[in-house]
């Protein structure tokens, strides 16, 4: 077999090497040989080559059809003026068209009728769940389980009332959200910081309050504690510590404690007063979403 020089091949001249059928594979050789090793003539399959060319043409075409090439003052707009922003906008519009009928029904139905209609309840819970995960879960937890200072929405204790209308009102206007005139508002005085009560008195009231909570380590009520409670706390929290949802005064006789039932926590609450803030959502969320959210939250705990 003759060895071929490289330039012969590059010149595109007729191959001088011996083209023959390779005995082992049955495939013709190119006539190319290096150090006794011959090259088989196995060109890329035609379909592969065509696919290769088509992808290149496709790729170039794509950059013409869609916005792609940067220019000094922006970029090419493509042939159909397509952009991901308009795409998202039209997708959102499509979604609203699809959801329109059921959302319309939720918007039209009175709040308490939504729960008794299985279809509306399911839809409202679905919409509410998503809105909750987006807007509420960061404070109230993914399942509305709350945390210290953030209300648990699954229990039966509702500071501002747990009826559907109460929940909706709270979501719309927030709690101690001063920018909203209709916000839920009440102030627990800072009995310690403002010098209304002495630290000893605060300790006595705290012990007294803990008797309501029926914690295992609480003492029996004392006359002194009862007197201090009646003078300072009963006006808001009620004579028997039953609380008052009208003014968001928590019940003190029960087992649900927003900040905790241990003595240092209660002492700190009495001494420093104040209360948690929840933003108003009216204006940020549309009315239908707020309605759905109220239904969802109500279904979590079904509060009174």
């Amino acid at each position, binding site marked *: 077999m003759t060895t071929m020089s490289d330039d012969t091949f590059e010149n595109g001249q007729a191959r001088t090497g011996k083209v023959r059928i390779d005995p082992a594979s049955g495939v013709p050789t190119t006539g190319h040989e290096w150090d006794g090793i011959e090259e088989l003539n196995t060109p890329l399959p035609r379909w592969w080559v065509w696919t290769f060319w088509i992808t290149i043409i496709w790729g170039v075409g794509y950059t013409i059809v869609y916005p792609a090439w940067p220019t000094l003052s922006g970029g090419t707009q493509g042939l159909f003026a397509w952009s991901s922003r308009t795409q998202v906008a039209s997708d959102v519009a499509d979604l609203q068209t699809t959801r329109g009928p059921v959302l319309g029904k939720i918007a039209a139905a009175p709040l308490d009728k939504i729960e008794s209609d299985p279809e509306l309840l399911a839809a409202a*819970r679905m919409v509410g769940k998503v809105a909750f995960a987006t807007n509420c879960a960061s404070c109230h937890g993914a399942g509305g389980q709350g945390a210290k200072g953030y209300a648990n929405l699954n229990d039966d204790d509702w500071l501002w009332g747990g009826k559907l209308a109460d929940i909706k009102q709270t979501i719309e206007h927030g709690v101690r959200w001063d920018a909203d005139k209709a916000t839920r508002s009440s102030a627990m005085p800072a009995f310690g910081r403002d010098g209304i009560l002495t630290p000893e008195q605060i300790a006595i009231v705290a012990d007294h309050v803990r008797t309501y909570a029926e914690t295992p380590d609480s003492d029996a009520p004392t006359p002194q504690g009862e007197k201090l409670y009646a003078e300072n706390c009963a006006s808001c929290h009620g004579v028997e510590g039953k609380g008052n949802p009208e003014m968001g005064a928590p019940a003190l006789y029960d087992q649900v404690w927003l900040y905790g039932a241990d003595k240092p926590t209660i002492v700190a609450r009495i001494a420093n007063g104040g209360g948690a803030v929840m933003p108003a959502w009216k204006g940020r969320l549309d009315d239908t979403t707020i309605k759905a959210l109220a239904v969802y939250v109500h279904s979590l705990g079904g509060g009174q």
Partner: protein
Amino acid sequence: MSSAETQSILLDDPIVEAPHKVYPKKVDGQFRRIKWGIQFATLAIYYFLPFVRWDRGLNAPSQAVLVDFPHRRFYFFFIEIWPQEVYYVTGLLILAALALFLMNAVAGRIWCGYMCPQTVWTDFYLTTERWIEGDARDRVTLDESPWTRDKIRKKVSKHFLWLLIAWWTGGAWVLYFTDAPTVVWKLATFRNGAFDTYLWIGILTFTTYVFAGVMREKLCLHACPWPRIQAALTDEYALNVTYRYDRGEPRMSLKQATAARAANLPSGDCVDCGQCVAVCPTGVDIRKGSQLGCIQCGLCIDACDAIMEKIHRPARLIGYDTEMNVKRRQCGESAIYKPFRVRTVLYVLLILGVAGFMSVTLATRDDMHVSVLHDRNPLAVRLKDGGVRNGYTLRFANKKAEARSFTIAVSGVAGAQLEIVGVTPGNKGKAVIEVGPDQTREARVLLSTHGAGGSKGQAPVTFTTTDAVSGEATQVTDVFIWP
């Protein structure tokens, strides 16, 4: 193997054959007729099954076989499968695999040769091709001839017919997923608005055309995993299309063979006419023994039998036989056939077992399904009075064609109160939930204990759903958790 032998193999016989186009020749005979029959039956089932009606009442589709994705149902005659019963489909797949194993243990890759869709449609396409372009020799001549008006006419009509078949095949597949007569009518009157119908018909038309028209045996040889797996599933008792070389070799012409026989010299029946190769749809030479390319269709048997008849030699020089039997005959032993072996009996028992289990569960399944999901976050909530509340999501599936009412009762936690969001308790304090015909309904269920104390940890809790009319009860169990 001596180096001379290696050399001879290398020189005579390429290890890897260069790709070449296969022109299978027409053949007639016993196996071809069986193949016609099976082909007709399978194609008829495929094309016409969607049009079979099955009355299921008002609220259900009346198509016998229907995969209803939008409503998440699968209908197969009297069987209706819900998403949560998808294990029946798994069972069917297991049955199909076992049947394939059994077939393989009895007669090798018989599936490939007769029932594999690739074979069936390739055969269909070949028949069409033969009808327009003539038999193998004519087709070779046509392909090699220059482009004349006649050649263009033939090629165009062939590809048109192929596309027509492909289109009808793709279309028929779509019919399994929607009401067949409706969609046919819509397509025929150009009123089909759904783009995905056209998309799927297009995709399936394309794949049918490419697989059956262009790829053909290449799919069996290069793409299909089955020939690779089946070597591990077969054994020396499985029937295979076998060239009985004990009888065929040495190959010689009829004249030479007659002379050799007269002289009492070794003589073979194979006259090397090449008909077995000519008719093979995958272009295999069966005389080289059992091989990957052989799909066991038996057409070479028919071709060889025709020749044997002409030269007045006994039929079945090629036949369904085992390599072991050929060897036994060479040693003067008699052929043995053992259809009942540990392997086959085991497969049959497994098939009967799985099929039996599926039939029993299918026959005794509830037409009511309840599933329960415990709240994850929070797992449990302390109530004002020291009680505990757990939240659950219950999902009811009414598999009957009429609306039904169910009462929900709970047991397992003493004194626990049940509350269903959006459902007010009825006159006897029982919660009644209505589920529409053939529908599911989800309900949020709150279970509360009251008063301090009670257990710690968790306890099993059972929800019992009772049909208000028939009294049929379904139970589902979860846990009640104390914080």
